[in-house]
């Protein structure tokens, strides 16, 4: 498989109101394969959102290169049309669903992207219906967005991106403002988009539980890549994560705590039930050993 997104020594900085220079993204070189589900973790101000906004040219990098599907975004002869084509291919869903919805009717909003692309009316109709079907919001097609729940609104926002038929979707803390139910709805939708429709997913989050569902986890710190690997590889390095000011999944934290008491449990179990079974087993064994 080929890399859909590739960055080389990417840097971006901005100035604060007190004229202090902040290096938000510092020398980031990564490759993301087509069809991968990547979670990007990091403390507030670690540069993860800035990094995402560089990928579809909402922000222009200071130095370094970005390649989307082999095409260099940062080359000087890139045209405005190329940038819009990249934005179509790399869709982006943001944190606050209210601030992404443009129209007063759900289906009109989903149609907004394809309308901008100049797609013929009947083709837009088909795409809108498909997109709403994919996120399970078909019933609400004629509803007003402000009467929907947070999770539903966010799914409408996702449908608006799907209707543009992107190859990759970036979720910029899209679950952060939702209640647990809404978060589950959105996470299930994201996972389905990746597994069933083969979309490349970049999921920026600070919920560890969500990151465990990804194929790959990238941890950012001070604008650079701090850790990069599978969830199992990353979350077993508990001390390093704590060092970066991050939490670990609750199951891992629990088993890590037991290990410090002298047990030897694996840290890479992220589901509650297997974790409970394994722990109970180990505790019983410890008790029988110490009788």
């Amino acid at each position, binding site marked *: 498989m080929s890399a859909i997104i590739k960055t080389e020594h990417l840097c971006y900085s901005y100035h604060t109101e007190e004229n202090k220079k902040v290096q938000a993204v510092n020398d980031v070189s990564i490759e993301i394969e087509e069809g991968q589900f990547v979670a990007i973790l990091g403390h507030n101000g670690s540069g993860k959102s800035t990094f995402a906004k560089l990928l579809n040219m909402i922000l222009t990098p200071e130095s370094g290169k970005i390649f989307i599907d082999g095409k260099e975004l940062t080359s000087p002869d890139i045209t405005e049309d190329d940038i819009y084509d990249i934005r179509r291919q790399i869709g982006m869903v943001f944190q606050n669903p209210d601030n992404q919805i443009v*129209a*007063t009717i759900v289906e009109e909003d989903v149609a907004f992207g394809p309308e901008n692309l100049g797609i013929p009316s009947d083709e837009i109709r088909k795409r809108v219906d498909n997109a709403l079907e994919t996120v399970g919001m078909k019933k609400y097609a004629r509803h007003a967005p402000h009467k929907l729940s947070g999770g539903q609104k966010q799914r409408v926002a996702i449908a608006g991106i799907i209707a543009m038929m992107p190859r990759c979707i970036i979720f910029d803390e899209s679950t952060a403002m939702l209640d647990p139910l809404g978060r589950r709805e959105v996470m299930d939708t994201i996972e389905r988009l990746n597994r069933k429709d083969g979309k490349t997913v970049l999921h920026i989050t600070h919920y560890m539980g969500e990151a465990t569902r990804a194929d790959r986890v990238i941890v950012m710190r001070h604008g650079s890549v701090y850790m990069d690997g599978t969830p199992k590889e990353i979350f077993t390095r508990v001390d390093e994560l704590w060092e970066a000011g991050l939490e670990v999944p609750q199951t891992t934290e629990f088993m890590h705590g037991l290990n410090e008491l002298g047990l030897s449990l694996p840290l890479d179990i992220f589901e509650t039930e297997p974790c409970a079974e394994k722990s109970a087993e180990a505790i019983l064994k410890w008790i029988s050993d110490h009788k």
Partner: protein
Amino acid sequence: MALDISIGQYFEGSSVIHKADPRVKLISVILYITVIFLAKNMFSFALLILSAIALIIISRIPIKIITKGMKPLILILVFTAILNIFWLQGDTLVFEFGIIHIYLEGIMTAIFMIIRITILLIGTSVILTYTTTPIALTDGLEQLLEPLKKTKLPVHEFSMMMTIALRFIPTLIEETDKIMNAQKARGADIGSGGIMQRAKALIPILIPLFISAFRRADELSTAMECRCYRGGEGRTRMSKLKLRAGDVVFAGTFIVLGALIIIINIYAPGFNLAY
């Protein structure tokens, strides 16, 4: 605070008027207003009243809602009537007391003016505001004004602004409510005192509201850019407005009405209005 905010005065329904093309409705309203000002004698005014009653019946909007909408107009109606009755001079003197002279022409003109204004309001609200969603209205307006795009008039931008404004009204009302509660929880006194005091009490509500509105605008513009928005050029629409036979009939009715009224003005006897 009620969160179920109805935007504008739209009244849900499925009548012929509700279903008509918004562009046709806009044109029809202009036609109807012209017709209203064409009417000059008793018979043509009678026809106007009939047409207004017909509109109300066809639209199936409860008469209660329409009378409620008329209330703010009462003062203007009374004022126009008084002005016409006391100031207009004519041939037939009806009442005389000191310097007050009331002529038949004055009374008739007053009656006609009241009918005119009332029908004007009923006409525009039944054809447009009560039966058309704001979004359909902006859509219709944009497509009707499309020829003006050639003159560099920002027709698309204007309708986009209207759409976004309408979209954010409920969101901002909800937000105002939240901020008010937050300020009340901090001991802000909002509802009491004189006008100056109450205006001052609004400041801690308006400032956070404005800041948040700016932030929203910023985020919305980024989200729109991510969805490839680049102005009206090269943009298509999902739901194209299509003219149906019924729409032509709808607009045609008003032209026929106008023709009838002109004929009545010329041939029918009865009191003729000077203007």
